């Protein structure tokens, strides 16, 4: 700490002992961010505790629970990640100023999917924070805080993309489709089973991701995103997902036409003819039409829903459907 720097800080913080090394105000810049002095981390009493599997489980469990609770527009789920990392950070940064600095850097904007993004990134973050804390304690060159931040920011988007399409987009609906028949018969298991299966499956592989992120560090994400394995898992799930959607479309989209007219005294029922030529043509056209709409215009769900409802209502009212 140079004299001049202390003076500037001192002016901000009225009447505080200007250079008290144990007061966080000493280390604040004009944006209110802490820039801790690495020397605070040295010494035997600041030695980071080792990170165990139990800590990783706690990190995952806390993130898993808190995930969407503090979601807000300006920070998204950054507070939830901080909440998950808190026990680990407390073990690593014994000095309260350095701990505050660590809390603060994780409260900045962050948004990702809970299991793929959250699991892997929280594991990687724990490993980077551990590396940094140990190096600071030993007085060596440490991982810079900006590297930790950039790793998180760089990974959160791609992993969210993978996670959203696999977990909430595919796996969840495979479970729902599987047990929907039960619900249709009035059986409550039709609601309980998809919920239990999805929650259990994602909890287990999310924890495995956390451990993997920790043990492989930054390499983990590259492995996941570039490896051929994930590609083939996504494809296989895609095959299963589309197959189930095909069954669902045939089973549950119930659109038929009541149109009939008499041709030279013989009743001509359009639906019978359709059934003879290509059964299920109308539901198929409806699904494919909507699919093409989304492929062309993107995920405009509300627009599609309102438009499609209007079309159905009109066609039903005039007797075509």
């Amino acid at each position, binding site marked *: 700490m140079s004299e001049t720097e202390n003076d500037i800080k001192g002016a901000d913080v009225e009447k505080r002992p200007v250079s008290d090394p144990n007061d*966080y105000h000493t280390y604040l810049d004009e944006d209110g961010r802490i820039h801790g002095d690495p020397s605070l981390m040295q010494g035997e009493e600041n030695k980071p505790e080792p990170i165990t599997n139990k800590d990783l489980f706690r990190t995952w469990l806390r993130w898993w629970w808190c995930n*969407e*609770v503090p*979601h*807000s*527009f300006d*920070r*998204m789920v950054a507070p939830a990640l901080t*909440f998950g990392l808190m026990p680990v950070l*407390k073990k690593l940064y014994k000095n309260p100023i350095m*701990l*505050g600095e660590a*809390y603060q850097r994780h*409260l900045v904007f962050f948004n990702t999917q809970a299991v793929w993004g959250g699991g892997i990134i929280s594991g990687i973050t724990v490993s980077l924070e551990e590396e940094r804390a140990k190096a600071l304690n030993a007085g060596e060159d440490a991982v810079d805080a900006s590297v930790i931040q950039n790793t998180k920011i760089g990974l959160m988007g791609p992993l969210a993309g993978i996670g959203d399409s696999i977990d909430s*987009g595919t796996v969840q*609906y495979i*479970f*729902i489709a*599987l047990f929907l*028949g039960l619900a*249709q*018969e*009035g059986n*409550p298991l*039709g*609601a309980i089973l*998809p919920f239990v299966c999805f*929650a259990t499956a*994602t909890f287990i592989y999310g924890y495995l991701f956390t451990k993997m992120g920790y043990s492989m560090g930054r390499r983990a994400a590259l492995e996941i995103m570039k490896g051929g394995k994930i590609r*083939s898992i996504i*494809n*296989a799930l895609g095959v*299963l*997902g*589309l*197959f*189930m*959607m*095909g*069954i669902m*479309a*045939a*089973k549950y*989209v*119930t659109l*038929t036409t009541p149109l009939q007219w008499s041709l030279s005294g013989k009743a001509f029922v359009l*639906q019978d003819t359709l059934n003879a030529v290509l059964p*299920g043509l109308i539901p198929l056209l409806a*699904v*494919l039409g909507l*699919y093409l*709409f989304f492929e062309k215009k993107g*995920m405009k*769900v*509300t627009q599609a*829903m309102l438009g*499609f*409802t209007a079309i*159905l209502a009109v066609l*039903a009212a005039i007797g075509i459907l």
Partner: protein
Amino acid sequence: MGKEPCVFPCKNRGSRKRLGEWKRKGAIMSVVQALLIAIFVAAVESRALGYATLTMRFSPLMSGLVVGLVLGNMPLAMVTTATIQLIYMGVVAPGGAMPSEPCISAAVAVSAAVIGNLEPEAAVAIAVPVGLLGSYLYQLRFFLNTFAIQKMDQYAVSAESGKLAFWIGGVPVIISFVLFVPLMFIALYLGAPVISDFMNAISNGPVLHVLSTIGGGLAALGIAITMHVIGNRKLLVFFFLAYFLQVVTSSAGLTMITWAVFGVIIAICYGLFTEKSPENE
């Protein structure tokens, strides 16, 4: 009017007949019942049950189950919920924002259906607009949470871990309960009977035909969304395979589980046949 004999295997035709038995005259909702359902919705929408709330929020199934449990008519609630589920297949929330809140819409629509003995299609017609309104409430929650952030920042800098944890994990939950419990209570206790009377008044003849056509057709929406989210056009052939398999074997009445077994086998075969030569690994 009404639907012509089902050409397609509507699995629910059987349970449709029994729907009559499950309907009870003069069902009403008490203050306690409305409150219980409102608390469940608040617990889900606050996400206070962890990531497990994903299915509870994205799918109407669990709220339908709770409504059935609280109102004491599980079969009718589940049949209605299953019909609502079909339009919400494929709902995902990229970046956390969803175009609808199936949890909220099902709580209101299934309640209205159970107390008013409505057809499942009428419940779908209630669910769609309620779900849209619900998504605004969820956005409001994101906005209200920003007020907690100032405190989070304050306790992060001073490294007061206990207070920081409370403002991250506790306060947003309280905010959500304050937001959702009263609103859902009013919507259920005062709104559901009015909605169900209204639907009963208009659901006859032509209106019911229009509603049931919409209900039967909207299932296509959720399926199309899921197909778009899976997003691989090359794999679309498996959709057609399954579609026509089901159409031609409809009389065999195979269950979803059976089809899923075939689906998994086909997916594994696909993996085997497209596997790259081992030099890559």
